[in-house]
């Protein structure tokens, strides 16, 4: 058996049979990281000693005949937005460069309880805001399929580490497509679960009504395994859904009889790349050949999804990020310098007799907040905080925020109507394959428009998965998106497995 060619599900069987130990497996992946991560840049933080200690403890317990958890001995990479007790959690931001959480996120506690080996924290766009991982304050992540291209974002490190065999399983988060788009760009399988399926406790908040953590892996089977480990009701998160977690691993291999697939005409409009279009249509045929029926549907408000999202998400972000005040944790500006500058400004205004500007001059506390936040946040985070503060400010609240909340309901109602007639909605995850690093840096709006097919699922709170379904002429992966009604992850996984049983796109590796 070659470890690096195996899926997590296969590795789990090898571990259980005693053919490989958790420590050996962890060593193998650590060696991969050592060899490849300098070029890829998927990880912000790898703690080999911590991982090996964890792995050895699991091996010891296995030898002693202890009952082990669902992931016993499997390495898992974690996006650096989930709090890990005693282990730096940066969110890709200078603001939290040295932040060491005093508690574990529930996802982390669950991974530990499942006996996973936490191998490292992965790179991301700062506070999960972005679609290319270029907004990380620390480093760029390169797409393993083409190093001059983006791995996608914001979970770029999470997808790139699976694509380049540096981890078999990986946790990302998805607020507007941040698991599915990088999964598509890197040729891996990634799921955004239903809002509420996975606890958000300890997931550093970006937009609380949209954020959801989820798994990335090579196959639907592996995604099922990881989802089963992290899903479930959590009293520590009042938005966590009080529903039972099905055994996804038990059912993922069962094909869906009489599967009804919806094809939304809005997903095949202007801007969809010709090769992506062809690959998705080919994928639909793969389902048809297994007995699925295809129905044309309409999601009439989907064209408003980006506008809706780029009001709601920044509004929630501006409110959530108010906590970075330079007082409780995180970065604080150099106070001496700040106070000296303020004193000089005051002196100059006094000398000029400028009463008006003197009255409006920041107090030292306000100036401390402003300097701290301006130095600690990157450009994209500041843009979104500004956008949200503007949309929520007096006189604009109804015109922007409340309006967007109303359109959000219309988007959800489109889905509710569609899912009366079909089981799943099938379409592209992204309009194009991975774009070049640096291509969109100066043009935020064009970058935002990339999220066209993914943001609706977050606004509506439904579940969705991206599955590799082709490779472009220039050798880049293409992603197929399946969307399901709330809490229908089982259907998504079974359908994704049906597809992977009939195709080999998910087995392709870069270069």
């Amino acid at each position: 058996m070659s470890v690096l060619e195996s899926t997590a599900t296969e590795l789990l069987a090898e571990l259980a049979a005693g053919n490989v130990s958790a420590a050996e497996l962890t060593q193998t992946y650590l060696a991969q990281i050592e060899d490849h991560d300098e070029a890829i840049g998927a990880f912000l933080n790898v703690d080999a000693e911590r991982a090996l200690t964890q792995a050895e403890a699991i091996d010891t317990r296995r030898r002693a005949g202890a009952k082990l958890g669902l992931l016993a001995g499997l390495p898992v990479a974690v996006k650096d937005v989930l709090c890990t007790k005693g282990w730096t959690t940066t969110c890709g931001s200078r603001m939290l460069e040295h932040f060491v959480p005093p508690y574990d996120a529930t996802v982390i506690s669950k991974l530990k309880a499942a006996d996973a080996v936490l191998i490292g924290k992965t790179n991301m766009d700062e506070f999960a805001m972005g679609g290319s991982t270029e907004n990380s304050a620390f480093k760029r992540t390169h797409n393993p399929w083409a190093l001059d291209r983006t791995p996608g974002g914001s979970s770029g490190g999470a997808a790139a580490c699976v694509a380049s065999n540096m981890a078999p399983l990986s946790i990302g988060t998805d607020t507007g497509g941040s698991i599915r788009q990088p999964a598509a760009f890197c040729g891996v399988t990634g799921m955004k679960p239903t809002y509420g399926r996975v606890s958000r406790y300890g997931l550093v908040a970006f937009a609380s009504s949209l954020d959801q953590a989820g798994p990335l892996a090579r196959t639907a089977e592996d995604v099922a395994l990881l989802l089963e480990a992290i899903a479930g009701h959590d009293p520590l998160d009042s938005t966590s859904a009080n529903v039972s977690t099905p055994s996804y691993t038990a059912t993922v291999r069962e094909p869906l009889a009489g599967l009804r697939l919806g094809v939304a005409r809005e997903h095949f409009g202007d801007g969809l790349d010709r090769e992506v279009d062809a690959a998705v249509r080919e994928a639909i045929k793969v389902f048809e050949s297994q007995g699925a029926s295809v129905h044309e549907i309409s999601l009439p408000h989907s064209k408003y999804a980006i506008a809706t999202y780029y009001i709601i998400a920044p509004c929630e972000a501006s409110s959530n990020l108010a906590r970075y005040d330079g007082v409780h944790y995180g970065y604080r500006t150099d106070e001496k310098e700040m106070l000296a500058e303020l004193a000089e400004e005051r002196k100059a205004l006094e000398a000029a007799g400028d009463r008006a500007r003197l009255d409006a001059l920041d107090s030292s506390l306000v100036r401390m907040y402003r300097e701290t936040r301006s130095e600690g946040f990157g450009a994209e985070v500041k843009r979104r905080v500004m956008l949200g503060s503007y949309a929520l400010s007096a006189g604009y609240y109804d015109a922007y925020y409340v309006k967007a909340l109303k359109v959000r309901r219309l988007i959800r109602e489109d889905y509710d109507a569609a899912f009366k007639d079909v089981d799943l909605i099938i379409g592209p995850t992204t309009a194009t394959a991975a774009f070049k690093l640096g291509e969109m840096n100066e043009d935020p709006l064009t970058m935002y428009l990339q999220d066209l097919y993914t943001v609706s699922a977050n606004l509506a709170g439904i579940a969705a998965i991206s599955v590799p379904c082709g490779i472009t002429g220039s050798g880049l992966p293409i992603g197929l998106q399946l969307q399901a009604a709330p809490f229908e992850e089982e259907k998504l996984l079974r359908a994704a497995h049906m597809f992977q049983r009939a195709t080999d796109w998910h087995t392709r590796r870069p270069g």
Partner: protein
Amino acid sequence: MGLTRDEVAKVSLLARLRFSDEELDTLTTQLGQVVEYVRQLEELDTESVLPMAHVEDNHNIFADDLPRPSLNREDALANAPKRDDECYRVPAVLGD
């Protein structure tokens, strides 16, 4: 119509951010483009639609009022940029 530079400057105080003149110019253009784009929502009649702030129909989730351990002071203060023995330290608020 996008945003004015004055509006952007005013919002920067609300957002507790601070920008150079050059940054203010760039932001005025960039935010203006986004605001103009999102205004397409105006073409939809939403008069009779209820706002949806959250996808779940859960309303109040009550927890039993039972004491349980919270973070101890040392752990809570461990990440503070500046602290006294028992408190967070901030610049003087009064007196200037």
